[in-house]
C-alpha cells in the first residue's frame, strides 16, 4: 500500500518538475512548482518526519512560492508567453543533464548502502527543540545562531537591494 503511494508521489514530483521547467506560461510554472513542493512534503509525511514536512509546507511552498508569485506580478507580463528556448541550447543542456544523471545513478547503484531497520515513531517536537538548542554532543546551537544571523543579513540585503534608489528612477 505504501509502495503505491510512494510511486504516486514520485510520479507527481517528476512530472510536475518537468512541467515547471518546460512550461510556456510563467504563472503556470509557479503553480507546478507548488505542486512539486507539496508532493515532497507528502514524502516527508510518509517517512514520519512530521515537523520537517510542516516546515517544508510553511516555508517552501507557503513562503517561497508566494514570493515568486509576487515577483512575477511585479515584473513579468503574465499574459505573454515566455520565449521558446533555442534548439541547440536545450539539446546540449539536455545531454549534459542526462549524462550527469546517468553518472550519479550509476555511482549510487554500485554503492552498497547499509540500510538499518528501525521503527522509531515520529519524533516529538520537544526532542527536536532540545536538540536544536543544546550545546553538548550533537547539539545544534551553533548552526541555529548562525542561521539566525544569516536570515538577518538576508533580510537587510533584500531590503536594500530592492529599495528604490534615492536619485530619480
Amino acid at each position: 500500500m505504501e509502495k503505491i503511494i510512494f510511486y504516486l508521489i514520485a510520479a507527481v514530483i517528476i512530472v510536475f518538475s518537468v512541467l515547471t521547467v518546460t512550461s510556456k506560461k510563467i504563472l503556470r510554472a509557479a503553480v507546478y512548482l507548488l505542486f512539486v513542493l507539496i508532493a515532497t512534503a507528502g514524502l516527508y509525511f510518509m517517512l514520519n518526519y512530521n515537523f520537517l514536512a510542516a516546515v517544508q509546507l510553511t516555508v517552501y511552498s507557503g513562503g517561497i512560492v508566494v514570493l515568486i508569485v509576487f515577483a512575477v506580478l511585479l515584473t513579468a507580463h503574465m499574459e505573454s508567453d515566455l520565449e521558446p528556448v533555442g534548439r541547440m541550447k536545450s539539446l546540449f543542456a539536455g545531454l549534459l543533464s542526462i549524462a550527469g544523471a546517468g553518472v550519479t545513478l550509476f555511482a549510487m547503484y554500485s554503492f552498497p548502502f547499509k540500510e538499518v531497520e528501525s521503527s522509531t515513531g515520529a519524533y516529538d517536537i520537544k526532542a527536536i527543540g532540545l536538540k536544536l538548542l543544546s550545546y553538548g554532543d550533537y547539539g545544534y546551537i551553533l548552526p541555529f545562531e548562525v542561521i539566525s544571523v544569516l536570515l538577518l543579513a538576508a533580510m537587510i540585503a533584500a531590503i536594500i537591494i530592492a529599495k528604490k534608489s534615492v536619485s530619480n528612477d
Partner: protein
Amino acid sequence: MHTELFSNTIWILVVLFFAFVIVGLFGNRLKPMLSGAISTAAILFAAVISYTTAYFYFFEQGMIDGKYAMLIPFEHEWLRFADTLIINMGIMIDPISVMMLVVVTTVSSMVHIYSFGYMKGEKGFERYYAFLSLFSFSMLGLVMSTNLFQMYIFWELVGVSSYLLIGFYYQKPSAVAASKKAFIVTRFADLGFLIGILLLSYYTRTFDFATLLGPDSTAISSMTGLSFMGISTITWVMVLIFMGGAGKSAMFPLHIWLPDAMEGPTPVSALIHAATMVVAGVFLVARLFGIYIGAPDALAVIAFIGAFTSLFAAIIAVTQNDIKRVLAFSTISQIGYMMLALGVSGYGGEEGLGFMASMFHLFTHAMFKALLFLGAGAVIHAVHSNYMSEMGSLRKYLPITHITFLIAALAISGIPPFAGFFSKDEILVAAWANNQLYFWTEWFVAGLTAFYMFRLYFSVFCGENRNYEKKPHEAPVSMLIALVYLAIASAVVGFIPFSQLVTSDGIPFDIHFHWNIALPSIGIALVGIGIAAWMYLKPGTAADKMAASMPGLYKLSLNKFYIDEVWLWITHKIIFKGISTPIAWFDKHVVDGSMNGIAWVTQRVSEKSKGLQSGQLQQYGYAMVLGAVAFVLLLLYWGAR
C-alpha cells in the same frame, strides 16, 4: 735615472687636454682672444717641453750603449682582461717619437699663431681653438703611445678631431659631406687596422711596443710557418695594419677623402692634412718596422702602393685649378714617397737608409708643406677666392708671402740648399739600391712635382699686371710670423744630420753624398721648372694647346681618374643594394615580423577566448556542471583502475 728626466713629457698631454676642456666648455663665455690665447699658450708650452726633451734625448741622455734607447718614463696599467692581456697607458720616448714631438708641436704652434689672424672675426673662433687643442693632444698622444691599443685609441681621437675640424663650417653642405667622407673612409680603413691589431696580439699575446720590438720579441717567431690562403700570416697581419695606415695617410685607393678635406679652414689643412695627421700612417709603419722586417711581402706591398700613389697623385695635381686641391694632391704624392722609402728599406745601418730617409722626408715635408698651405691661406685671405684663374701678379701686393712661398716651392722641388733636396735625395738613393723601376718612377715624379708646384707659383704670383677690384692686402702680423718661421725651418733643416739621430735600429750611421743620384734629380727639377715657366710665366695658350693635344689624359687627370665615382658606385650598387637592402628587409620582415606575428597571434587568441567570459549566466552554469560531471567521471574511472 734616465726616465725621470723625461717624465715631464706627461705635462704635454695634460696641459693640452685641459686647454681643450676649458676652451671647449667655457669658450663662449670668454672673449675670443682669451680662448685663443689659452690654446696657444698650451701648445707653446708643449713645444718648449718637446724641444727640451729632444735636446736632452738626442744630445745628452738618450744614447745608451751606442744606441738610442726606447725609454718609458710613464706607464700605468689601465685594463686587465686576463693575466696575459693587459692594456697600459703610457709615454714612450724613442727617436721617432721625439722627432714627431718636435714636428707636431712646431707646426701646431705656428698654426695656432697664424689662426689668430686668419680666423679673426669668425663665428666659432673658440670652438676652433678647442678643436685644435684636442687635435694636438690626440696627435701627441698617438706618437707617444707605448702600446698598440693606446695608439689605436688616439688614432680614433685624431680621426674625430679631423672630422670636427673639416666640418667646421657646418652650415656648408659640402663641408659636412667632406667631413663625413673623411671619417667614414678612415674608419673603414681602421677596420683593417683593428683586425690586424687583434691578430697580432692573438699571436704574440701582447700589445706593448717594447715587448713587440724588443730583442727577444716573439712577434716574428710566433707567426712563422703559419699561413692562411697561401699567404703567410705575418704578411696578412702587417698588410691589415698597413690598411689602417693607408687610410689615414691617403694612399690609393683610400685617398679620396683628402682633396675633399680642403673644405676645412686653411690652417686646419696645414696642420692636419699636410704635416701631422696624414703622416700617422707612415709613423705607424715606422713604429712597427721591427716587425715589418719579418714580413718582406708586406713591405713590397707598401713600396708598390707608395710609388703608385705618388705617381698617380702627381698626374692629377698637374691639372687642378684650385690651389688647395693642388697642394692636397701634392701631399698625397709626397706621402707616397715616404711610404716607398719605408717599403724599400732594410734594417740596421746602411741597409736602413730607406727608413731614415722616410723619417727625414717626413720632417722636412712637414715644414715646407705647412708653409705652402699657410701661404696659400694668406693668398686666399687676400683675394677671397681659391681658384688660380682669379689670381696673378700677387708678388707686388704680398711681398713676404711671396718670398716664403717661393722658398717652400723650391724646397719641395728638391733644389739645394733647401730642405727637400736632402731628404728626397736620400729616398732616391734608397730606391736605386732596391729596385730601379721605383727609382725612375720617383725621379719622374720629382719632375712632375717641380712642374705643378711652379705652375702654381707662376700663376699666382707672377704674370702681368692684373686688376683687382679690391686691392689685396698683405697678411696680418700673426700670419706672417708663422710664415717666416716655417720658411727659415724649410731652409735650414736639411742640414740636420738625421742619420745620426733617427735610424731603423737606433744606431747612428754615416751617409755619403751620391753625386750620381743628386745631379739627375736636380736636373729633372730644373726641367720641370723650366717647362712651367715657359707655359705659365707669360700668359699664352701653351697650356691650353697641350691640354688639347692629350684630351683623354687631361680629362682623366682633371676628374681625378674618376676614383670617387668608382667608390660611389661600389657603395650604392654593392653595399647598399646588395648587402644593406636585404639585411634591412630581413630586419623589417623577419625580425620585426616575428614580433608582430607573436603580438597578432596573442591578440587573435584573446579575441577568441574572451568569449568564454561572456557574462552569460547560463554559460557559466553550463561550464560548472560540465566540469563537475567530468570530474566525477574521472574519479570513477581513473580511481577504479
